């Protein structure tokens, strides 16, 4: 695995440069994971884009980098400490006297400095200041020892719509490539199965289309906005209705109304927007209307760290909304399961007529990952609709929309498309939807709705997944993006002779406790929690169900995802003590 860190100022072309690198590497057959760190500004402030790549499956993130591509002085100064000894620094800074201490450090740490005066050269070749990034890209590519055409074709992809600029971009990239002496490839490419490179948000948008979503309504909020952007792009091709609503209450109300009327609609937001949606979540519970909300997490409270990552809205997803009822909380871990779990979420929501909250995280939402194209599986659509609803004997005009059944799930149909009428009532109601305040009816309806959880848990949710050897020295339980870091850590630690296990939950609630019992039998007293929040929210839920369980908790709440080094340090500390 090698890691390139592109550093510079926010708005200085970091993202487009990073994406070109990521795509060009993917096209050469590498597995790629990216990470973007940027302040919540459009311009200014230092930012970085890292591209990790490997000739075998690669999941997690590391803090160190092998190559630092610096687009500005501030980027060089801020990120040099992350460059490994013996690594490469590619930069185009002109006034070398201004970075004497850094250059001295490079010499001390045997860092190879690859340098040209990129801004001057870019102007000379007919470009603007920003085109210097292309010279630096060419230099980076040669440093990596990779063939130029792969880079050229990605630059053409990215800037093809502006032919005049494209010509200069290509000239600059070619010049940068030739300015560096021939290198042997740092990591030769190998044959891999077909890979796709996409973000979690992109995968959710495509999964939603695959699953028959016809209407998407949302209010812009980082890090969920990408879903809106992608669906708007596909709206023409797939005849979608994509509505940027005036607020999140409107977005979720539009979705609920559309789902009642028989289509599949979807919304997504982040924590603050989700807060506004909770009243409607409660409406979905009593009217038993399917509703899927994608909750893209970032650190709070309030505005918090708007452009950083977190796993801190588990409690929000589990408990938001007044009253009691059934709901499902799922969590994605990467773009591959973002594509499949959005389909699962939409299916469960219709099969059981409950709200489903699909958690994602900024790290997954906005970052590019390679996934095996074949793992982006399409599931059949499950709607659980009936064409001929049963009717009440004493009121034959009304369908028994809330009929009491063993599972608690009642017949549902598309209103106006069946002979009997469909009354969806936010007041407590009888099986035909008529308002009631009768104690025994109210009690049985209330129970019926909650009871659905048993059926959901036993038949509908994706099961927990255990990764690692049986009887490990140490095991973790977690959800979301932690699966990625744990997969890398499991193989890295096994080289060191430490057996690490990880039990991953794609469904947080209702909780499947069987897998936890099995894990407990195998490594009692050696189970730890890994979560991207300060209070171990999912761990609290687990211990509510299973009793005291965790020997220790690896928690992180600084807006950054987990890095390999941190998890390894935690494990080594535990093993040695």
């Amino acid at each position, binding site marked *: 695995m090698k890691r390139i860190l592109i550093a510079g100022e926010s708005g200085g072309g970091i993202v487009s440069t990073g994406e070109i690198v990521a795509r060009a590497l993917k096209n050469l057959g590498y597995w790629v994971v990216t990470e973007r760190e940027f302040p919540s500004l459009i311009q200014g402030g230092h930012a970085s884009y890292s591209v990790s790549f490997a000739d075998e499956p690669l999941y997690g993130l590391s803090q160190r980098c092998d190559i630092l591509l610096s687009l500005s002085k501030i980027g060089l100064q801020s990120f040099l400490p992350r460059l490994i000894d013996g690594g490469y620094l590619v930069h185009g800074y002109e006034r070398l006297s201004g970075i004497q201490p850094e250059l001295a450090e490079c010499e001390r740490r045997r860092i190879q400095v690859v340098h040209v005066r990129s801004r001057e050269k870019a102007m000379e070749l007919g470009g603007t200041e920003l085109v210097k990034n292309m010279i630096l890209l060419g230099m980076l590519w040669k440093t990596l020892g990779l063939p130029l055409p792969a880079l050229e074709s990605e630059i053409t992809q990215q800037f093809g719509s502006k032919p005049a600029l494209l010509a200069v971009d290509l000239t600059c990239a070619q010049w940068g490539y030739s300015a560096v002496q021939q290198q042997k490839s740092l990591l030769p490419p190998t044959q891999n199965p077909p890979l*796709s490179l996409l973000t979690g948000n992109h995968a959710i948008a495509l999964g939603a289309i695959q699953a028959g979503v016809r209407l998407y309504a949302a209010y812009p909020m980082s890090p969920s906005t990408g879903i809106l952007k992608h669906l708007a792009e596909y709206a023409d091709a797939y005849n979608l209705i994509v509505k940027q609503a005036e607020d999140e209450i409107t977005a979720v109300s*539009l979705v609920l109304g559309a789902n009642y009327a028989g289509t599949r609609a979807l919304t997504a937001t982040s924590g603050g927007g989700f807060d506004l949606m909770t009243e409607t979540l409660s409406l979905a519970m009593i009217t038993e209307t399917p509703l899927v909300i994608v909750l893209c997490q970032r650190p709070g409270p309030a505005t918090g760290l708007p452009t950083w990552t977190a796993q801190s809205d588990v409690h929000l997803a589990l408990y938001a909304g007044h009253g009691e009822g059934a709901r499902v909380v799922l969590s994605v871990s990467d773009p591959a399961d973002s594509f499949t779990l959005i389909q699962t979420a939409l299916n469960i929501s219709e099969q059981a007529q409950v709200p489903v909250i699909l958690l994602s995280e900024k790290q997954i939402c906005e970052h590019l990952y390679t996934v095996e194209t074949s793992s982006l599986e399409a599931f059949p659509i499950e709607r659980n609709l009936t064409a001929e609803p049963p009717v009440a004997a004493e009121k034959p005009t009304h369908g028994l929309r809330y009929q009491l059944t063993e599972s608690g799930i009642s017949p549902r149909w598309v209103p106006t498309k069946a002979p009997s009428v469909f009354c969806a009532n936010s007041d407590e109601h009888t099986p035909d939807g008529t308002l009631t305040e009768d104690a025994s009816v109210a009690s049985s309806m209330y129970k019926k709705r909650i009871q659905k959880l048993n059926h959901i848990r036993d038949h509908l949710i994706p099961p927990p997944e255990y990764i690692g050897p049986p009887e490990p020295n140490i095991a973790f339980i977690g959800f979301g993006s932690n699966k990625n870091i744990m997969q890398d850590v499991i193989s890295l630690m096994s080289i060191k002779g430490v057996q690490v296990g990880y039990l991953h939950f794609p469904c947080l609630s209702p909780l499947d406790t069987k897998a936890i019992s099995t894990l407990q039998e195998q490594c009692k007293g050696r189970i730890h929690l890994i979560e991207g929040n300060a209070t171990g929210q999912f761990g609290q839920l687990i211990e509510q169900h299973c009793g005291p369980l965790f020997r220790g908790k690896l928690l992180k709440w600084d807006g950054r995802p987990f890095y390999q080094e941190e998890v390894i340090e935690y494990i080594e500390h535990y093993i040695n003590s």
Partner: protein
Amino acid sequence: MNIKNTQHTVLYEKNTLVNSYETQEKITWCSGCGNHAIRNALIDALALENLTQQDVILCYDIGCNGNEADKITANTLHGLHGRVLPLAAGVKLAQPNTVVIAQAGDGATFSEGIGHLVHAVRSDYPLVFLLHNNHNYALTTGQPSALTPCGAKRSATDGHTPQRPLHPMQLIMSLEPSFYARGFSGEREQLTELIRHGIHHHGFACVEVLQSCPTYAKEADNSYYWERIRQIENRTHYDINSYADALILAHEDAKNGTFHTGVLYTNTTQKSEYLHYQSTRKDLSTEPWAEVTPRDVSPLLARL
């Protein structure tokens, strides 16, 4: 003074379609409440338009009017306080060929729901919106709403409403709606016709209904309204397609405390209706409710 017969002339009672909307459920509104007549006018309008249960979905807010949701044999969706407009818009987007009627009171619409109202007018969703304007929060026992006249006696105040009211037509006309009508619960036949006009309108059809609430808005009984109501047909030099005329009317009614009734404004030239602008769905004859089928995105995935 323009005093009219306040007795209901029940024209359509024997119509089987009218009967099909009736239920055995006991209606829970106070006797003398304007909601009875609004409900009858609505059923009459649906029957006169030959709309069956398969043609219409009724959406309700929370308030006295919302208690109709299970007291009518129709497909209904009873939502949350203030939120009926986006809820009904969602229904309409899923079933564009179905007539969707949203009902809410003045309390919900001009407080919690005011943002939704503004954007529903702006989006020009093809809905009929029946605004039950009874000048108070009746279901919560008579607190002043944003439309309660200043000084009117209401609960939860020191006896009299301290603030000046909003005037619904003035506010909505400022948003350039495509349709505005005003009726009165004491004039059921006219109200029926206004609802029918609303059903025919392509776009957001706002029908304000002056609704008597003898329990909590005691000052505004039927005679109060009859004294203040003016028929729009009697206004000279008034063009219902003129935005300028409608703005002046809204301003005058607000200033004089009068209520012109009838279809007060329609814009037939400007096409702003949200569904109309869905270029993504041009030339499509299906409706979203019937389109929930798998779409193969694998060619896209292979290219990423």
